[in-house]
């Protein structure tokens, strides 16, 4: 993972949780670019209205998505991403505190690539972020061309 720009789009309304995710990534040198969007509407505008996302280097390699978001629901954002031809190949990992089965089923039905529940325990939380980063940005192979 040397020299590659690995960018993550983090869609999370809880400022503290976003900070925890960012620090876990930074401490483990998982990604070198994290863009944080704070609610569903902001995410929607960035993904579907602001066309610069399609510019070279702006396309995220991974999207981390919380489900309970103000204004536009996370599930709705997921649906939109997975039905947009240009975005649907980006892995979307649901990162939520909900254990609810209906969320789990809905997420996979809408083609989420993975579903993770935020661990309460700090060491588990950082371990998860590390594994998550290495797996999706390292081991996993995507059909789309990542910017070198």
């Amino acid at each position, binding site marked *: 993972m040397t020299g590659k720009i690995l960018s993550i789009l983090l869609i999370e309304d809880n*400022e*503290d949780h976003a900070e925890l995710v960012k*620090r876990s990534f930074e401490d483990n040198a998982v990604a070198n670019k994290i863009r944080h969007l704070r609610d569903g509407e902001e995410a929607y505008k960035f993904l579907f209205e602001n066309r610069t996302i399609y510019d070279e280097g702006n396309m995220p390699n991974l999207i981390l998505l919380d489900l*309970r978001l103000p204004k536009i629901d996370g599930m709705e954002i997921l649906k939109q991403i997975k039905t947009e031809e240009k975005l649907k190949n980006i892995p979307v990992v649901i990162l939520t*505190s*909900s*254990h609810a089965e209906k969320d789990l089923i809905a997420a996979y039905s809408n083609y989420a690539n993975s579903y993770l529940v935020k*661990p*309460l325990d*700090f060491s588990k939380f950082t371990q998860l972020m590390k594994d998550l980063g290495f797996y999706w940005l390292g081991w996993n192979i995507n059909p789309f061309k990542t910017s070198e």
Partner: protein
Amino acid sequence: MKKFNPDNENHIHESKISFEKFRDFSGSNSLGSWELDFEKKQFRLDPMMRNTFRINEELFVYDYDAWWSRVHDDDKYLLTEVLNEIQNGKNSYEVEYRHQFDGENYVWIKNYGYVIERFPDGLVKLLKGVYLETTKEKESKIALEESEKRFRTLYENMLEGVAIHKLVLDENDQPIDYILLSVNPSFTKHTGIDDSEIRGKLATEIYKTNPPPFLDIYAEVAITGKPTQFTHYAPSVKKYFTISSFSPEKSYFATVFQDVTEQKTLSEALEKRIVSLTQPLEDDSEIKFEEIFNIDEIQKIQDAFSTATGVAALITDSKGVPITKPSNFVRLCNNIIRKTDKGLKNCMYSDRIIGKANPNGPTYQPCLSGGLWDGGTSITAGDKHIANWLVGQILDESISKEKMLEYADIIGADKEDFRKALDEIPMMSREKFKQICDALYLIAQQLSKLALQNINQARFISQQKKSESIIQKQVNELEIKNAELERFTYTVSHDLKSPLITIKGFIGMINTDVANQRYDRIGSDMRRISNAADKMQNLLEDLLELSRIGRIVHPASIFSFSDAVNEALELLFGLIHARGVSVYVEENMPVIKADKPRIREVIQNIIENSIKFIGEQPNPKIEIGSKKTNDNVIFYIRDNGIGVEEIYLKKIFGLFDKLNPESEGTGIGLAIVKRIIELHKGEIWAESKGINKGTTFYIKFENNINE
């Protein structure tokens, strides 16, 4: 030209190849070639056909007549025609007919023939061709035709109106209309819309409504394939229709409708009858004889009784007003006494007295009007007296005609006519009359029992109906409550976990930082932990508050909304002052009956919310006012703050739904407000013209104060 020879292996081989080609082409399995030699009068068949047509005989060369005899009699004419055409110059033909190859069974064959050689005079010398067995296709085609015919007959003759349609979608695949493809004669009969007029026309065009009738329902059927049924009242023709709709294939749908007006009217009448019968017996409302019995049937019984016994008969209500038509009334009573005002009044009075409830037996006594012998018995339902059955209008030896004539003067009737009519009155011994009255009493007793049974039955049905609807209502309420509870636990578990993740996460961060001797961000991390703990405390307090709303109810009192507003403003004085908000309150707002502390809480919450989202407004302002109509009182709290985008106006009342993740507060405040208003059977909603255009909250109460 090569001659066909059954023994020539080579030829067979060749023809086999061409058959196979043809077989591929035709998709059929049974094929064979033949030739018809008009010179030798022979019909020769390809030996291959032995297998295909299951021929046991060794023979492959028939004389012409033998071959012809095996053609099905019904097809001979057709074949003759074809052969004539050939003789007259046509060079090839195609015909389908039945032939008996094995001497037993007819098979359908398609015969393709062509002329090989002609005599000099032009007549055919040699004809060749191939056979293709089509029995299966033909049979299934016939079966299909028959079933089509059967279906067609049903379609044409059924009493239900049937129409077949195709759904029309717009460019976004949204259903907008439908095309009528076909309707049956019953449809035309009911609607006046003829099959020839509708073919391929749009429903909007035909029914002159847009959207066309039941588009939503039909679109669902045509798209999902799920059949449906509903009842519709057509006011223009005053008829009820049951409409069933199903989809024979995607985007097509058929509708079948049936006139159910008669059933509907009957069941409505029955319903009405049950309702009227089941009013409690104790209450003052009358139970009517007509509602318990079929009057036509009772009339028949009364007429038969009267004819059999030779006495006049009539059934009246408990006040003496006739319910049935009189049977066998004598002219004296019907045309003379009852035609005078005084006479009729006396007759009704007498009927009431003679028929009065007497459980022990019939009454008989001279009529209190004319003085003829009358008898009567009452009909009851339980302890209610519902009717009188009266008989009589006879004379016995004891009655003095002279004395009766005086009555003509009293009521003002023509004396001569009165006398004549008096002579027409039948005579009967008193003993005989008493026997008739006893029989009448027994019949009336039975009718009384029947009346009580009918009422009890109706009451039972109505009680059952009532309890069924109560149960259904409770089930529905329970389902709503359940769904509410599910949503509640879901959000609570989610939102209570969030601060915990923060707390544990940043404690972990601090530990790591301390271990790495990085102290720069410990302070800010501690603040995050502390804020998260505060947030959790607020959440728990608000949740407790929310759970109290339904449980702790203050008694409702009558107060002016202004009082509740003033109390709330006092509590919020500090906040209002700190933000420099001007508050304008309408004086003497209407009075409502409600839980005052809760209403105060609602006002407080909304004002707090307004101040929280007042934004950068240089002149922050809140207006509180009211509007009263006949049925409702509406209060409003209007601010000039940051406003809400229209799409989120409903979301703001949801539990934990915050539009701005950074705003303080738990997201429970407006959920509490909504819950309180709902418990008061009121309505609450917010309106806003958009960002920075301010927000207005409306609270509507039913006008529950009688002033």
